[in-house]
């Protein structure tokens, strides 16, 4: 039995825990100290306590703008994931699609998003549509790549086995390829959520009337740097939470991907 096998990988993927918290506390302490002893003008670099104060005092403002951005990010990821799976499955099933579509997908990643975002806003308006397109554009590609990698990593013995069981192409996909690819899909999604938050900022930069990115720009323009930093904290915190959430989903949904790493 391999009941001891998961121990090593699980320890490695566990939250970094107290060491990371300690390091973070030290860094914040140094930052506080640096500002307090006059290393930087508090207007330009606010001390952590000032950021904390802004987080508390502007909580209503920050929250209402966070809700806007969170909505963009979550819907954007949904669009990205849907598009990515459609592309990945299509490419997997059809050589023609692979030859026609894959190079264009790669090329789409060479488009400088900060340049295309304002054009998209001009076209699709200040509403959520342009934002979803920008977020999907920056975050769909990792999911395509990792999903395809997962689909291609299927044990060829299993495909042969299914063929001797007279399984149709679709049933081979459903019972063997799709579950094999699931860990890859989730890995891609973990990368995608982090990039999606950056995408949301770029989209709001190109034209918005609310959202944390918008609030950030407004705050910087008004030299409300503590508030700007507070917005940054919330954005990063959101990205980290989404990442951790997906790690939990991974543990629940694809436990075998952890188990089998120790053996074989």
């Amino acid at each position, binding site marked *: *039995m391999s009941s001891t096998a998961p121990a090593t990988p699980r320890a490695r993927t566990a939250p970094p825990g107290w060491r990371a918290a300690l390091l973070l506390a030290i860094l914040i302490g140094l930052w506080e100290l640096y500002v307090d002893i006059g290393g930087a003008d508090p207007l330009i670099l606010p001390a952590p306590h000032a950021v904390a104060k802004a987080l508390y005092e502007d909580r209503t403002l920050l929250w209402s703008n966070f809700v806007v951005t969170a909505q963009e990010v979550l819907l954007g990821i949904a669009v990205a994931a849907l598009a990515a799976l459609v592309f990945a499955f299509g490419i997997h099933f059809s050589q023609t699609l692979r030859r026609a579509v894959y190079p264009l997908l790669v090329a789409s990643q060479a488009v400088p998003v900060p340049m295309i975002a304002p054009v998209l806003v001009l076209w699709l308006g200040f509403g959520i549509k342009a934002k979803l397109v920008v977020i999907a554009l920056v975050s769909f590609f990792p999911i395509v790549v990792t999903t395809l990698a997962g689909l291609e990593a299927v044990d060829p013995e299993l495909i042969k*086995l299914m063929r*001797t069981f007279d*399984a149709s192409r679709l*049933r081979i996909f459903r019972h063997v390829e799709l579950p094999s690819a699931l860990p890859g899909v989730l890995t891609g999604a973990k990368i995608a959520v982090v990039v999606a938050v950056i995408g949301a900022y770029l989209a709001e930069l190109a034209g918005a009337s609310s959202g944390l990115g918008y609030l950030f720009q407004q705050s910087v323009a008004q030299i409300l740097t503590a508030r700007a930093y507070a917005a940054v904290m919330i954005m990063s915190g959101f990205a980290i939470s989404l990442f951790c959430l997906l790690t939990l989903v991974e543990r629940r949904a694809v436990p075998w991907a952890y188990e089998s790493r120790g053996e074989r």
Partner: protein
Amino acid sequence: MTTEAPEKEPREFQGLDAIRVEGVSRTFSTGGPEVQALGRMSIRASHGEIVAVVGPSGCGKTTLLELICGLQAPDEGSVESAPAALMPQRDALLPWCNAIDNACLALRARGMSKTRARAVAAPWLERFGLREFQDSRAAQLSGGMRQRVSFLRSLLAGKPVLALDEPFATLDAITRLQMQGWLSHVLASERRTVVLVTHDVEEAVVLADRLVVMSPRPGRAVAELEIALPRPRRRTDAALVALREQALQALGVGG
């Protein structure tokens, strides 16, 4: 030499033989230099017969099974076989499924619902001593249990021919002996035409009705031994030991 157009599916036919492979050659050239796996290989199996195929590593045994299963077409010669289900070399269980759902795979592949497939598989798990492990995922099963699930999975495909590719090669020596006894027992009550590929001569002699010895690459049949011994067989039985010796001689490793 008969040169027939390669067929995708092995032809099915009625007759005394369940498998008839005649003068089959198969050459691979995946990138590197050409490798001839089989050179004019012939083998037959009548209905319900257990034929063991032994040979040195890389003599095309797996290729032979894939030809019988219709997964490949011969370059030369002909392959005729009743429908065959493969039991792959490593157990190749689905890591995301528990034992019962792994055993159900062939039924699910035919479109049977999960509930019905489980109902079909459950008594078999019971019979194979796997009942209390039916909800355990593949990684939680021991090597011997994994092989039993893997065998059951191929058995439930309901094909008249089973193509077993070194089924016990990855097991430790003691478990392998147990599993050989177990398989012999199962096949006695669940008669199928079996092609058992192995590199273990003793395993072949204990389990099979007939033993085919293959040459090194390009593989072809160089010797055939009838094993007309009553079952259950004892490994220390003089007749069995003599047959084993003969097979080893044919392989060129006899004492």
